[in-house]
C-alpha cells in the first residue's frame, strides 16, 4: 500500500467513525417538582423502594420538610426528613404563630448534564445515556465510593449487600417502555411531573419564572427543576 493511499484510508476511516458517533439527542428527559403540591405523604418513597428493591435505610428519593420561622429576628430554618419521609411527618414542635412558611421538598438524583459523579468514576461504570439519564453499571462498579463523595445532592448510596454504588435511575426500565417513574405514577397530588424536554406540559412549566435548580453555583446543570421553593432549599 502506498503512503498516499494509506493516508486516504486513514482519513476516510476517521471521518466515518465521527459520523457514526452518536450525537446527543435533544429529546432528553426532565423532571419537575412543584413543592406547593407535595403533601409529604411518602408514597413516592415507598413506591420507589418497592419498584427498585432499595435496601432499608437507603433512599433513591426522599422528602424533606422545611419550616421557616422567626422569633422577631431574621429567619431560622428547620429541616427534617425522618426516615426519608417514607412514613409521613409528625407535627413539628414550633409555635405556629412564628412559622413564616412551611413546605415539603421531594429530592432525588438530579441526572445532571455535567455530572461530577460520572467525571470521577475511575472505571467508567457510571455514565449518561442518550436520554440524559445517569446510570450505574452494577456489574462493572468497583465500589470505590468516589462518585458518592462527588455527588453534591447526596443522591447516591452504597448498597452494602451488593457492595456497589446505587442511585435513582428515573425508573429507566419503565420510562424506556413509555411509562413514568414509579414515584411520579403514585404521587396523589401531581407534585412530580416527568416527561421529555420537548413535551408541551414540560415546556409550559419551564417557561415560568419561579423555576429553580439546586446548587446552580456548582455548574452541574441538573435536569430536575423545582417550583415554589424558597432560598433555604439547596
Amino acid at each position: 500500500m502506498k503512503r498516499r493511499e494509506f493516508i486516504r484510508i486513514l482519513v476516510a476511516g476517521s471521518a466515518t467513525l465521527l459520523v457514526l458517533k452518536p450525537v446527543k439527542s435533544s429529546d432528553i428527559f426532565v423532571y419537575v417538582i412543584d413543592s406547593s403540591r407535595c403533601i409529604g405523604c411518602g408514597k413516592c418513597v415507598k413506591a420507589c423502594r418497592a419498584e427498585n428493591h432499595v435496601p432499608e435505610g437507603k433512599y433513591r428519593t426522599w422528602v424533606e420538610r422545611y419550616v421557616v420561622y422567626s422569633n422577631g429576628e431574621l429567619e431560622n430554618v428547620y429541616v427534617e426528613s425522618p426516615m426519608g419521609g417514607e412514613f409521613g411527618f409528625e407535627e413539628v414542635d414550633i409555635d405556629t404563630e412564628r412559622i413564616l412558611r412551611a413546605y415539603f421538598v421531594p429530592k432525588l438524583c438530579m441526572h445532571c448534564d455535567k455530572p461530577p459523579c460520572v467525571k470521577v468514576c475511575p472505571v467508567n461504570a457510571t455514565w449518561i445515556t442518550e436520554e440524559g439519564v445517569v446510570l450505574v453499571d452494577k456489574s462493572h462498579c468497583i465500589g470505590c465510593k468516589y462518585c458518592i463523595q462527588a455527588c453534591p445532592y447526596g443522591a447516591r448510596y452504597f448498597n452494602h449487600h451488593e457492595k456497589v454504588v446505587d442511585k435513582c435511575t428515573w425508573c429507566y426500565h419503565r420510562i424506556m417502555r413509555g411509562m413514568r417513574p414509579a414515584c411520579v405514577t403514585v404521587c396523589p397530588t401531581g407534585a412530580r411531573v416527568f416527561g421529555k424536554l420537548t413535551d408541551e406540559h414540560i415546556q409550559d412549566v419551564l417557561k415560568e419564572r419561579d423555576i429553580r435548580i439546586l446548587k446552580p453555583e456548582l455548574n452541574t446543570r441538573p435536569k430536575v427543576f423545582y417550583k415554589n421553593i424558597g432560598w433555604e432549599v439547596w
Partner: protein
Amino acid sequence: MSSEIVEGFVYPNHEVFWGVLIVIYPYLVSIITGMVTVYAIAEFWRKELKDIEKLVVISSLPFVLSALLPLLLDLGQPQRAFEIYITPNFSSVMAVFGIVYLTELFALLGEMWFLFRVDIVRRAMNEENSVLRLFYKILTLGVYDTDEEAIKVDRKAIKILTGIELIAAWCLSYVSFLFGVVKSNPWWNTTILPVSFVFGGLAAGGAMVMLLYLLFTEFYRVDRKPEIISTLANYVFYFMLAAFALETINTILYAYKEDVAWAVIKLASTQLALPLAIQVIGSLEALLFLKYVCYKCNMGKINTPFIAIASITILIVVFAMRWNMVIGAQLIDYGLRGFVSYTPPLWGREGLIAALAVLMAPLIMLPVVAYFFPPYEKRVRAVL
C-alpha cells in the same frame, strides 16, 4: 463503620463512606513522597546523604508495595480493581493515580536494580547457598559487567530513574487532588489543600528516613554521622513548618470568610478535638525538637532520643492531619446543615485491626527486603 447524626439535618444517605483505611492510603503515599524526595536530594544535591541512598531505596519499596493495600481493602469489589487499567476513565483522578502508581513502582524497581547491581553480581558469583545464588543470578538479568564504564552507565540510569520517580512520587502525593476536586465538599475544595498535603508528606517521609537511619545503624552497628542527621532534620524542619503554616492559614481564611459551610465546619471540629490537638501541639513540639537536634549535630553530637521523639511525633502529626482531612470533611453533610460522628469498628475489613495491619505491613516487609538487599552489608561483615 458507624456514623450517627450528632447535630442538625443530614441527607438520609449520608454516612462516612471512606473510613480509617482511606486515611492510611494518603498517609503511606505521603511517606513515599518524602522518602523519594530525600533520595533525590541525596542523588542530585547533598552529597553528604550518599551514605543513606541504599537505605532509602530499600525502605521505599515496602511502602510503595503497601500503598495499594488500604485501597483494595476499602473497595466494595476488590476483584474488579484491575478494571482501572482496562477501562480507565482519564477524567477521573483515581484512574490517573493508578497509572502514576505503576510508573512509580517500576521506576523504583529499576532504580533499585541499578543501585544494587554490583552487589547482585557479586552475590550471584560468590553466594554459598545455591538457592540464593540462583535467585541473584536471575536478578542479574544476565548482565555481569561491573567494570568502571558499566558502573558509570548505572549511575546515569539511576539519575534518570530518580528524576522519573521523583515526578511520579510528587504526582502521587497530589493524591490530595482526589479530595480537592470534590467541589461539593467545602473542607476538601480549597487551593491550599494539595500544597499543604505535599509538605506534610515531605516531612513525614523525611522523619521516617531519620527513624530508619537510627534503626538500621543500630542493627548493622554502623557509626552515625551527625551531618546526615543535621541535613535531614533541617529539611524536615522546613517541610513541617510549611505544612503547619499552610494548614493554619487555611483555617484562618475559612474562619474569616465565614461562608455558609463555616458554621457547620466549626461545630463538626468538636468531633476532632483530639486529632486537632495532636496536630497543633505535636507540630510545635516536633519543630522545637528538630531545631535542637540540628543545633546538637552542628556541634558534632547526636542526641538519639530527641531524634527519635521528633521523628515519631512528626509521623503521628501527619497521620492526624490526614485523619482530619479525610474523616473531618466527611462528617459534614453536603446540605451544610448538620454533621455525623465516626467511630471505626475494631474488627472487619474496614476496622482498626485491619488498619493497624496495613500500617505495619511496610515495616514487616522491610526486614525481608533488607535481607536480600542489605544497605550496609560491607560494614556488617567487617564488624563481624
